[in-house]
């Protein structure tokens, strides 16, 4: 499959430099309007408050807007058009029925009385239950809107937990492995913690002795991804959790790699005190070009009191409400809760999709997902290891990390290889992460790619490895078949142009 380079017909718009598609501003002409909303009302706004600043939004008619955004869409690679082998992103297929049923809840406002949203509450309650069971945890908060916000929420929970025991002032440190995703230390810093790192050992595990040396009475928690960002299951995970608990600290599970564990193992059985889930990874909700997602936080019972409020309560008669004295009042007994991250139930439209996916697959389907994800990754690794260095010599789970160090010496880096893959019609894997592997390429096929696609992807990477030997310059020149060649990111950062400025107006850049 080759990426189509759309030939954009001349739309009669002038662009200052050659461009794939004009901007909406360049397509606009004064006097072009739609008629989507009835006009004619006069609004009574006191003169002192009125807008006198010109409102220079572009004027276009609907046919132009449709063509413009359709052209833009056609420039995009997406799961609907091809495979994304991105490690730790779990770019599996996004089922369309999920989108359709999410639409059934579109016209509900979060500040409606709970009496008018029983369907919402029933879905959310059941979703909490299912997530708790799948992760081996006891209680769930659906408020966090992404993994990073979930991490932040969890660390606030940790802080509150330690404060309750009178240890908030002393426990000021979070430990992360050197393979941790960047959001982990960033979330810890946002939470007022300082961060230290512990190294991985030669088998890709957290170095247990190093961790024990790093632990102390000033540690609040340890953030662990399992399987880790190398795709490897922590071989001594229970010992790691025990060591952390012995020091009086808590273990946070980064659930980005949960796809490998579905029906295979549960974080709650391995010693984790909590784990977050990325539903836009494990539970198939679409990535939306960068978001939205949702990041439910699943915790053991001892952390429940600190979870954000309000909580959903189910009555004996099967009806639902919030644990507030009066609806959107301050919850009766905020108690030890850290407060609110998002009013009501987080990104409900995304959560409804995840719920639908889980109901569609059911237990056997979820179990099969984990197994097929592991199978596909190990298969792909077997196909690729003749040509690329493998970072660690033990079976990975749903993803694995190759090193292009060999290829770099011959003149093409992981970056160059990732661009050459675009010419082969595939999106690149994650590159240069985790930081502990030089020229890293992290590959996760997921369970929804047919075997023929896996074969084609492997063949493409092997072809590129051959080209690196014979003609590395051609690999460095890639991509040549994508809509654009490589972009000047240095210029973009040195002299940022972050918006359009109407020409001929003070402050115009373009």
């Amino acid at each position, binding site marked *: 499959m080759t990426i189509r380079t759309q030939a954009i017909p001349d739309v009669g718009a002038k662009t200052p430099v050659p461009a794939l598609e004009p901007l909406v501003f360049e397509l606009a002409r004064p006097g072009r309007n739609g008629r989507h909303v009835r006009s004619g009302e006069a609004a009574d706004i006191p003169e002192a408050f009125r807008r006198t600043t010109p409102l220079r939004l572009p004027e276009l008619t609907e046919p132009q807007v449709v063509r413009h955004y359709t052209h833009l869409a056609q420039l995009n690679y997406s799961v609907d058009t091809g495979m994304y082998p991105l490690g730790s992103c779990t770019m599996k297929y996004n089922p369309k029925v999920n989108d359709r049923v999410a639409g059934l809840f579109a016209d509900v406002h979060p500040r409606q009385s709970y009496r008018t949203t029983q369907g919402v509450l029933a879905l959310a309650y059941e979703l909490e239950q299912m997530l708790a069971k799948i992760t081996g945890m006891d209680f769930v908060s659906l408020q966090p809107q992404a993994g990073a916000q979930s991490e932040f929420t969890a660390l606030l929970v940790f802080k509150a937990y330690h404060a309750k025991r009178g240890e908030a002032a002393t426990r000021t440190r979070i430990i992360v492995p050197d393979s941790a995703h960047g959001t982990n230390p960033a979330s810890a810093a946002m939470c007022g913690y300082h961060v230290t790192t512990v190294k991985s050992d030669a088998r890709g595990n957290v170095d247990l002795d190093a961790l024990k040396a790093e632990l102390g009475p000033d540690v609040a928690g340890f953030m662990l991804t399992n399987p880790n960002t190398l795709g490897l299951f922590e071989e001594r995970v229970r010992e790691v959790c025990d060591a952390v608990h012995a020091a009086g600290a808590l273990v946070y599970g980064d659930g980005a790699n949960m796809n490998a564990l579905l029906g295979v193992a549960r974080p709650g059985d391995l010693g984790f005190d909590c784990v977050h889930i990325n539903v836009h990874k494990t539970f198939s909700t679409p990535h939306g070009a960068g978001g939205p997602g949702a990041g439910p936080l699943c915790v053991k019972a001892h952390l429940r009191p600190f979870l954000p409020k309000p909580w959903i309560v189910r009555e004996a008669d099967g009806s639902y409400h919030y644990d507030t004295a009066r609806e959107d009042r301050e919850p009766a007994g905020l108690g030890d809760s850290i407060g609110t991250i998002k009013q009501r139930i987080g990104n409900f439209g995304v959560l409804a999709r995840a719920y639908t996916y889980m109901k569609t697959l059911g237990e056997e389907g979820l179990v099969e997902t984990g197994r097929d994800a592991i199978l596909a990754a190990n298969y792909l690794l077997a196909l690729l290891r003749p040509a690329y260095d493998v970072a660690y010599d033990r079976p990975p789970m749903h993803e694995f990390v190759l090193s292009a*160090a060999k290829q770099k010496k011959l003149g093409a*880096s992981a970056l160059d290889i990732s661009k050459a893959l675009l010419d082969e019609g595939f999106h690149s894997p994650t590159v*240069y992460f985790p930081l502990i592997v*030089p*020229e890293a390429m992290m590959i996760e096929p997921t369970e929804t790619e047919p075997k023929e696609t896996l074969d084609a992807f492997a063949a493409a990477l092997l072809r590129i490895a051959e080209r690196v030997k014979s003609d590395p310059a051609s690999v460095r020149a890639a991509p040549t078949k994508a809509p654009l060649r490589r972009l000047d*990111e*240095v210029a973009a*950062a*040195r002299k940022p142009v972050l918006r359009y400025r109407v020409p001929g107006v003070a402050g115009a850049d373009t």
Partner: protein
Amino acid sequence: MSTVPDDLRYSKEHEWVRLEGDTATIGITHFAQEQLGDVVFVELPEKNASVRQFASLGVVESVKAASDIYSPISGEVVERNVKVIEKPELVNRSPYEQGWMVKVKLADKGELNKLLSAQDYRAHIGETAGAGGD
């Protein structure tokens, strides 16, 4: 010009110092700018700010990394090089000359003893250069 000039002193974090009387000129080394890649932004302290040896005095950013600049000596900032703020590429093109960053009035000359000679710095980067990876 050599990539490790002999007349300068160096820190382990890849900063250099040129001493002229009481005033020290500070920048980052050729090795550092090469590791960073194209510099896109430099953040420097204001005049009269005080800096401490081995504490951060600013940030240098490339497209792929952002690094703290650690002051090799303590003292008071007497001048900052606005040219590298306007044209960050000077740091790549001329790290020891036009790419200088701040001039500091030295608080304690004894601190220079904690820095590396050119020879020691060459050995230092000779060690780390072999450890592979970008």
